[in-house]
C-alpha cells in the first residue's frame, strides 16, 4: 500500500483505467436514476452523466485530453453502433417499406429545416462565422457531424458539444411536446426525434416505444447521409 495517497492519485489520474471506470460508473448510476423515475424526460442519463463528469474534471483539475485517453474506448463505439443500425432497419423492413414515401418526404424537409434554421438563427443571434459553421451539422450523430465540421474548416470539438446539447434537448422535449399535440403515430414521433436529435433522441425513442425507436434509428442513419450532402450546399448558399 502506497504511503502517500496523493502519489497514488497522480498515478491513477494519468491512466485510461480511471477515466473509463468513471464514465461507465457515472452512466450506470444516471441510467439507474432514469429507470427509477420511470424514464422521466428530465432524468436524461446523457445530460446527468455529462455534467457530473465535467464538474469532476474541473474540481480535480484534469484536462479533457487526459479524460479522453480513457473515454475514447467508449467514443470509438459510435462508428460500429452506426453500422449496427442496419439490423433494426433490416428487421423492420416491411414497416419501413410501407412508410417509405412519408419517410423520404419528412427526411428531406426535416433535414433542410434542421440546417437552415440553425444557420439563420445563429446569424440572427450575431454569433461569429466560425461558430455558425460549427453549429450547422448539429442534428447528426457525433462522429459524422465532427467529420462534416472538419471538412468545412470549422471547430469540430464545438460541433461535438452542439450535437450532444441538441440531442439532449430534443430527447427531453419530444415526449411532452408530442403528447400535448395529441400525436399518437409512433412512426412519425420516432422519425422526428431521430432526425432532430440523432442517437440521443433514438435512445429516448426506444425507451418510449419500440416502433418509435426503429423509426428514430432509420431517421438518424438516413439523416447522416443527407446532412453530409446538404450542409456544404447550405453553407455555400447561406453563409458565404
Amino acid at each position, binding site marked *: 500500500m502506497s504511503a502517500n495517497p496523493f502519489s497514488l492519485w497522480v498515478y491513477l489520474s494519468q491512466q485510461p483505467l480511471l477515466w473509463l471506470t468513471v*464514465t461507465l460508473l457515472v452512466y450506470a448510476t444516471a441510467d439507474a436514476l432514469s429507470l427509477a423515475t420511470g424514464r422521466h424526460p428530465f432524468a436524461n442519463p446523457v445530460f446527468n452523466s455529462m455534467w457530473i463528469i465535467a464538474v469532476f474534471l474541473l474540481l480535480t483539475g484534469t484536462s479533457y485530453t487526459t479524460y479522453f485517453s480513457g473515454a475514447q474506448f467508449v467514443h470509438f463505439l*459510435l462508428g460500429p453502433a452506426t453500422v449496427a443500425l442496419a*439490423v433494426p432497419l433490416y428487421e423492420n423492413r416491411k414497416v419501413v417499406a410501407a412508410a417509405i414515401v412519408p419517410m423520404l418526404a419528412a427526411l428531406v424537409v426535416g433535414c433542410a429545416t434542421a440546417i437552415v434554421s440553425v444557420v439563420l438563427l445563429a446569424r440572427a443571434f450575431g454569433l461569429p462565422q466560425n461558430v455558425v459553421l460549427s453549429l450547422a451539422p448539429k442534428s447528426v450523430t457525433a462522429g459524422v457531424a465532427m467529420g462534416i465540421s472538419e471538412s468545412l474548416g470549422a471547430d469540430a470539438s464545438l460541433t461535438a*458539444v452542439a450535437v450532444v446539447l441538441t440531442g439532449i*434537448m430534443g430527447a427531453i422535449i419530444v415526449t411532452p411536446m408530442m403528447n400535448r399535440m395529441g400525436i399518437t403515430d409512433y412512426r*412519425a414521433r420516432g422519425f422526428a426525434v431521430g432526425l432532430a436529435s440523432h442517437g440521443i433522441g433514438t435512445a429516448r425513442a426506444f425507451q418510449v416505444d419500440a416502433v418509435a425507436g426503429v423509426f428514430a434509428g432509420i431517421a438518424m*442513419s438516413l439523416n447522416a447521409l443527407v446532412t453530409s450532402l446538404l450542409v456544404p450546399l447550405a453553407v455555400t448558399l447561406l453563409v458565404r
Partner: protein
Amino acid sequence: MIASLSLILLCQLAGEIAVRAFAWPVPGPVLGMLLLLVLLLLRDRAVLFAQGPLQGGGVENAARGLLAHLSLMFIPAGVGVVQKLDLLAEHGTAIVGVLAISVVITLLVTVATFLVISRMTTRGRSAS
C-alpha cells in the same frame, strides 16, 4: 460474438476505405451500415451468404447489444464541453437558445411532414 463484431467492424472499414478512395461526401460508418443491410438481405436470397455471423442471429445480437447503450457513447463527446467554457461564457446563452429553437422547429416540421404525406398516400391508396 467476436465474429459478429468483426463483421460490423469490417463493414465500417470497407465503408471508410470506399469513402476515402472515391472521395465521397458520405461518412464511412453510414456506408458500412448500407453494406451490412445489403449483406443481411443477400443472406435471405443466397445460401452462400448465410454463414458465420450472418446465421443464427449472431450479428443481430451483437448489433442489439451495441444499440442498447447508444446514450453512453455520446458522453465522452459531451464532456468536451469543459474545453469550451470560455466560448460558452461568451456565447453560451445564444448557442443554447439557437439550438433549442432549432430543435423544436425541426421536430414540428418533421412530424407534420410525415403525418401529412402519410395521410395523403393512404387516402390515395384507398380511393384508387
